[in-house]
């Protein structure tokens, strides 16, 4: 479902399209970027989906305990902050040689603007397989309503 969102491209996918990335760097676009956009692949990545009665935010926070993640909403702006601990090599008595370090560690903070009309008081969040899912119901008066047509 998220596959058809190419128009929101904030940059080329990492590793997928190095040639386009090279071309984009040589001939940068003159278009304006979203004020809160981050470089592609910044940890944690975020997806947002909408249903008729709620908005769901998926935060792809691998290896993060739910208790160190702080989610807050103010004026329809969602802020996710936390800290991912350093990968601790279980080496005993020996030195550790790193060959690759691509996984980010340390503190992070990410902010996204949400659509209007969400009921932040009834928001729920749960964490499964490294994905934090935030469920934000729409306010009652903003839900789509069926209007009955009366025969006269």
């Amino acid at each position, binding site marked *: 479902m998220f596959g058809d969102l190419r128009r929101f491209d904030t940059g080329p996918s990492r590793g997928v399209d190095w040639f386009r990335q090279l071309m984009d760097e040589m001939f940068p676009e003159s278009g304006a970027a979203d004020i809160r956009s981050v470089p592609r692949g910044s940890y944690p990545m975020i997806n947002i989906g909408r249903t008729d009665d709620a908005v*769901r935010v998926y935060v792809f926070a*691998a290896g993060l305990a739910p208790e160190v993640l702080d989610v807050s909403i103010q004026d329809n702006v969602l802020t996710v902050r936390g800290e991912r601990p350093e990968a601790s090599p279980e080496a005993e008595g020996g030195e550790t040689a790193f060959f690759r370090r691509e996984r980010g560690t340390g503190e992070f903070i990410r902010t996204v603007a949400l659509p209007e009309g969400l009921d932040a008081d009834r928001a729920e969040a749960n964490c499964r397989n490294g994905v934090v899912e935030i469920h934000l119901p729409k306010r009652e008066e903003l839900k789509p309503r069926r209007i009955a047509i009366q025969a006269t």
Partner: protein
Amino acid sequence: MNEVSRQQTRQQPEATSQEAREPQAELAMQPPVDIFEADNALHLLVDMPGVTRDALRIEVDNNVLSLEGDIQLDMPEGMSAIYAEVRAQRYARRFTLSHEIDSDAIAARIDNGVVHVTLPKKQSHHRRRIEVKSA
């Protein structure tokens, strides 16, 4: 999650050839990895959020280690995306192993979206300390 592939099967119900698989459905993300060496083994840490134990495939074939995982999200019917940074349905990454890795002893576990693969070295390649004798 698999809306893309579902739509394709709906549009071309009898198409079973390779062309039926659009590149978009096959689009895979490269997960970030940490690789380090400790305790006579190489360790791989791979970020694959949204992948369950059953949706993860780790294979060693002809000295190539491949890690693949399908993203499984709980999404209600009729949801439309309004913003997405994760746009692939799966992760995939491959590494060539060196000859000193004991491919029969490779072990892996997944915890909270992080895959930890342990690649032990063969016994003959373990690090040895050589005693220096005094004359």
